[in-house]
């Protein structure tokens, strides 16, 4: 015990004596561990707890997939679900939901609600209870009896001012009366963004339907049941179904997923994995740094250790001494690392706008993941221990008296050590190059996103949404008149250049786009598999000018395109090239599928494509119609202003109130803000990758510096001899810098192909990233090389200043 205390005291003294090395080592550890823990904690939240449910680990999703058409997960048919529910024994409950959307009327402003149809066991499957009122009853899942609904906490607050007497109230849902029987708890939003839940009932026809696939199926494992059992059972049932109805299930494949994995968006998943990989690299680089420093520390003490051995220290005692030093160093680094991780997490959490965080599955469950912290600590500790102890084990094999004799300097083990350290540095350089290139490409891609949007000059655009209630605006002509008055009134506001209408502006609606099918006159209705779809936009004639969307051919709409003139359409360039390849689309006729009345629209113009979000790499075909020929309920208003668009909010509100005081308007935001909010996720990834790249650069530089610096001090004697042999200062300088640069060049040569592979993967992930970016593949390696040059130049300057007299004096 006493000797341990003595060892600790001595370890502290040694760490203090070499405080620069100690600080570098602990700093590298802290950076590696801090970044890793923070990203791990985020990944944990995104990948494993995206749904804030206690039972999340006992919940599964069962989905359909069709690999032949790259459909990875989709909902299942009613008959399929009902048979599973009947036959599967691995679950104690198997529920389902489907997407829906309804209008609430009859109790105040009509409102479009994002609701979900759910089986009556849906909430009990998830293991949740309403905050107010009750869950659905089993009989409420029968056709004709499903007249109840449960509100989300948010909708209850917004629409009903958190009225405590809400239960029993009747609301018209798409014209039919429903009774509110419950309100879910605050924060419960599964499926994501749900505002209300309505019971679903299957009629006789649906009960045997295997073609339409509306149901997302969620199962709760029976007590004692395992994921694997449940999966195997479902797959067996699915096989029987496929055998019995080969046509219905041809090419379809059932998949069973943990609910957490199911609920995470694919993009979130990909980017989270990307970040995880990147910080994994950082941890490796940090470990290499630690190993290098430890290595140097211990091998610089060969003589001391030999003397200790000569004084009778056992090998165990010596190893223990080194072990204690390593552990203390790692603890020091870990303490710094945990603060760093907490800080990074708080920065990440505090910069995400709450409006956006709401839609990120798992955001709320981000917190420091202690398991991740322990894991990174373990890795760092192991690397420190291994590198700290290995040299001492190596050297205790050689003769102690050899070490003590001034001429026997254990040269052969010195060579081996030197080679190992060089390998570590080469690995660090190549890993950090990969990270730098990855970060550079992401940042450039992100910038490209911003540049693309500059064409709209979003800084002077104000956008807002409004939704005309069906009751007050039942006729087309009434809506068209409203829009006419709206545009006139808004464009009369001073400093407003023009006002335009569109269904959805780029990046509006969170970047979400709905495509609808359309027909082309004279062509057969398309097969089931190939969809002929386009984004449907209803716009005012000046929309193209306001948004600077260029005309390629034909004409855009004019004020004379009205109800009594020929129905017309303008199509986007991508629609023209995809569906009218080799033809002139002008004069051709198209029809929006399911439109009433069925009108054929004559194509009169082709305009440039618009990018609706950053996710789609390719432009989306778009079909525009003039608002007077198709007056819609839901509209986005766009104002081009002479000033900061946010200043016009109140003027706009009062103008609209003057036309219809009861009309709610929402999402009144400058387009700049709309875009920023829409790309906040990817900007996070880009910023974090940039941070990770810089950390990697710093760590690799420290690595090169450490190794060159150590090598210079280890080679003081050699430098002295070389000077005595006539080496000039320049020659010594070149020797050291040349050594460092050789390692750097090898590292870059290994790193470049890896970086290129990464770039290929990234370019398929993100718009604007090209795999052949000169900045990434020439500029960044040059920067890395320059920094490494500096890192070896500083030790070289020290080498030059070596006094051969001192270096050669032995005593």
């Amino acid at each position: 015990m006493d000797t341990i205390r003595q060892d600790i005291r001595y370890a502290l003294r040694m760490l203090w004596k070499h405080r620069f090395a100690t600080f570098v080592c602990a700093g590298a550890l802290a950076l590696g561990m801090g970044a890793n823990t923070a990203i791990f904690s985020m990944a944990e939240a995104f990948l494993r707890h995206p749904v804030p449910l206690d039972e999340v680990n006992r919940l599964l999703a069962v989905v359909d997939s069709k690999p032949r058409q790259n459909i990875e997960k989709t909902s299942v048919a009613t008959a399929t679900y009902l048979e599973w529910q009947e036959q599967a024994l691995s679950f104690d409950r198997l529920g389902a939901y489907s997407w829906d959307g309804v209008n609430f009327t009859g109790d105040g402003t009509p409102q479009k609600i994002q609701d979900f149809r759910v089986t009556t066991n849906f909430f009990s499957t998830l293991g949740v209870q309403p905050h107010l009122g009750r869950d659905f009853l089993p009989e409420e899942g029968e056709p004709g009896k499903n007249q109840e609904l449960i509100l989300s906490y948010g909708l209850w607050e917004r629409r009903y001012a958190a009225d405590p007497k809400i239960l029993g109230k009747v609301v018209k849902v798409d014209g039919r009366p429903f009774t509110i029987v419950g309100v879910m708890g605050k924060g419960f939003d599964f499926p994501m963004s749900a505002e209300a839940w309505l019971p679903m009932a299957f009629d006789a026809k649906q009960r045997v339907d295997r073609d339409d696939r509306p149901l997302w199926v969620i199962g709760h494992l029976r007590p004692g049941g395992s994921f694997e059992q449940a999966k195997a059972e479902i797959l067996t049932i699915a096989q029987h179904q496929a055998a019995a109805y080969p046509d219905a299930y041809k090419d379809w494949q059932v998949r069973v997923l943990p609910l957490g994995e199911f609920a995470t968006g694919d993009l979130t998943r990909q980017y989270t994995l990307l970040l995880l990989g990147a910080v994994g690299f950082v941890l490796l680089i940090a470990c290499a740094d630690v190993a290098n420093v430890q290595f140097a520390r211990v091998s610089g003490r060969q003589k001391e250790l030999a003397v200790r051995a000569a004084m009778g220290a056992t090998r165990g005692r010596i190893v223990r001494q080194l072990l204690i030093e390593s552990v203390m160093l790692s603890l020091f680094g870990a303490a710094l690392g945990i603060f760093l991780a907490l800080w990074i997490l708080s920065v990440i959490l505090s910069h995400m706008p709450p409006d956006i965080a709401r839609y990120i599955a798992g955001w709320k469950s981000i917190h420091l993941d202690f398991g991740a912290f322990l894991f990174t600590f373990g890795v760092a500790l192991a690397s420190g221990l291994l590198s700290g102890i290995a040299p001492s084990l190596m050297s205790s094999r050689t003769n102690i008296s050899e070490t003590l004799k001034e001429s026997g300097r254990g040269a052969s083990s010195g060579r081996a050590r030197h080679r190992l350290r060089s390998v570590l540095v080469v690995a660090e350089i190549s890993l950090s190059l990969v990270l730098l290139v990855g970060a550079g490409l992401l940042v450039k891609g992100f910038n490209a996103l911003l540049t693309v949007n500059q064409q709209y000059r979003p800084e002077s655009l104000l956008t807002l949404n409004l939704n005309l209630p069906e009751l007050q605006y039942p006729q087309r002509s009434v809506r068209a008149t409203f829009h006419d008055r709206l545009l006139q009134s808004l464009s009369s506001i001073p400093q407003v250049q023009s006002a335009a209408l569109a269904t959805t502006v780029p990046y509006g609606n969170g970047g979400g786009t709905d495509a609808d099918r359309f027909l082309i006159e004279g062509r057969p209705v398309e097969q089931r598999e190939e969809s002929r779809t386009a984004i449907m936009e209803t716009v005012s004639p000046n929309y193209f000018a306001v948004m600077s969307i260029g005309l390629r051919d034909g004409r855009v709409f004019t004020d004379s395109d009205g109800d009594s003139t020929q129905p017309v359409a303008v199509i986007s360039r991508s629609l023209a090239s995809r569906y009218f390849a080799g033809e002139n689309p002008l004069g051709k006729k198209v029809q929006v599928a399911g439109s009433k009345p069925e009108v054929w629209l004559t194509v009169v113009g082709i305009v440039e494509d618009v990018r609706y979000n950053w996710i789609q790499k390719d432009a989306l075909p778009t079909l525009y119609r003039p608002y007077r020929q198709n007056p819609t309920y839901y509209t986005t208003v766009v104002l081009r202003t002479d000033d900061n668009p946010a200043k016009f909010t109140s003027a706009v509100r009062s103008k609209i109130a003057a036309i219809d005081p009861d009309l709610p308007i929402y999402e009144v935001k400058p387009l700049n803000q709309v875009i920023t909010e829409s790309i906040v996720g990817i900007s996070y990834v880009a910023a974090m990758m940039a941070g990770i790249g810089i950390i990697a650069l710093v760590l690799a530089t420290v690595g090169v510096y450490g190794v060159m610096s150590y090598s210079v001090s280890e080679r003081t004697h050699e430098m002295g001899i070389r000077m005595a042999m006539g080496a000039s200062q320049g020659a010594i300088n070149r020797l050291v810098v040349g050594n460092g640069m050789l390692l750097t060049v090898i590292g870059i040569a290994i790193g470049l192909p890896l970086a290129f592979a990464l770039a290929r993967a990234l370019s398929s992930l993100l718009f604007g990233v090209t795999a052949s970016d000169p900045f990434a593949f020439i500029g960044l390696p040059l920067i890395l090389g320059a920094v490494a040059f500096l890192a070896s130049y500083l030790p070289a300057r020290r080498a030059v200043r070596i006094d051969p007299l001192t270096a050669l004096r032995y005593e």
Partner: protein
Amino acid sequence: MEPLIQFRSLEKSYDAGGSKFFVLRRINLAIQQGEFVTIMGPSGAGKSTLLSIIGMLDSAWTGEYYFLGEAVHQLNNKKRNELHKANIGFVFQSYHLIDNLTVFENLEVPLSYKNVPHKERVSLVCDALDRFHIVGKKDLFPNQLSGGQQQLVGVARAVILHPKLLLADEPTGNLHSAQGDEIMELFKKLNDGGTTIIQVTHSERNAAYGNRIVQLKDGWVVNESAAATVQSA
């Protein structure tokens, strides 16, 4: 003929807490080309220091130093380095071979600082290996050689460019007397071939190989004498 080395009132001192601690005092000394000089004296007398100054490894001194008529005290570092490279070879008590280089590579080191082309370098090294009978050792590392063999390599390295002056600081200090004699014979042969040699030694026996002895004590030259003749030649 002008002397190879001429000192006038050369002094060297260290700062010892404000006062000067003299290591060498008012040295006036001339050494002619072709001499084989032995410097002797008790430990701490300043022998190694004097040798380093002669070898131009040390430039912190006062006084005048002429090397072949060239005023060393007026030269800048670069010029001194050139003079050193062109004319002087060093042999050390603890050999000072570079641990991480083979015998062959160690011999190449001085050549690499004189821009000797590769082909010529190889032939010079091979000559030296031949001359000193160490061809069989050329791929070994220093720690794989005996002390005598290491010093043989050290001497070979020092004279590989046929320097005018060979400086040796206790070259046999770590060797058995038989090994020491071998090195001394070698020196004798080199001296007979025209190389000027200045050696530091404690051994009368080694001193006898030379033709002149300079005695140092506390930094002063206390005595100069001709060496006793070599008993066994």
